[in-house]
């Protein structure tokens, strides 16, 4: 299992498409920084192919006033959870 990290919003950037095309069936994706916008109900549809394997960073949601606005299918983790994901994944691939 690999962890993919995306830090750009699907509203402005197509980097999320590259991340998705790099993901195997067990891989998970964590949204950080401006990428957390992807956790909004209107944008989460871009991540439909990996439903259940999408995470978003709590601190970055909070800083942007988006914490209470995430789609239900998104798993919110804090930075300790981010570290745990990197432990569990064989390696981490960042898309920026």
């Amino acid at each position: 299992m690999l962890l993919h990290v995306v830090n750009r919003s699907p509203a402005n950037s197509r980097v999320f498409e590259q991340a998705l095309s790099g993901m195997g069936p067990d891989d998970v994706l964590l949204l950080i920084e401006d990428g957390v916008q992807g956790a909004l109900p209107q944008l989460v549809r871009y991540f439909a192919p990996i439903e259940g394997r999408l995470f978003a960073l709590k601190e970055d949601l909070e800083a942007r006033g988006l914490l209470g606005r995430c789609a239900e299918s998104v798993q919110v983790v804090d930075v300790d959870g981010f570290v745990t994901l990197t432990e569990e994944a064989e390696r981490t691939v960042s898309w920026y």
Partner: protein
Amino acid sequence: MHEHDDTLRDLLVILRHAPHGSSWLKEGLDAALVAAAFGQSVSLLFMGEGVTALMPGQGPGPLGQKGTAATLEMLEMYDIETLLVDAQALSALGFSSDELMLDVTPVSAEAIPEALSAHRLVLTF
């Protein structure tokens, strides 16, 4: 020579970036505040992810830095009152203009070129 058409406002600052992720939003706002302090008529246009700058309930960044919400609250003091928001970008994110932290004017896609034409100078951030 520069045309000094009196129907034109002085400066339109286009803000296209989210808070915290980069310094673009802050640096664009700084340019707007300085122009306003110099007595210019300044408008802001929030486009793309820039509309997230207007989300209520923003907090500090990862190392405690302030972000831009406090700066936005000072706009009125600087007489920057024309706050335009790309209506399409807003609905793409699932937001409505009445839940934003400031009173803004949603503009339709057709009205955006008019906004650009109505200012003597346009800066994009």
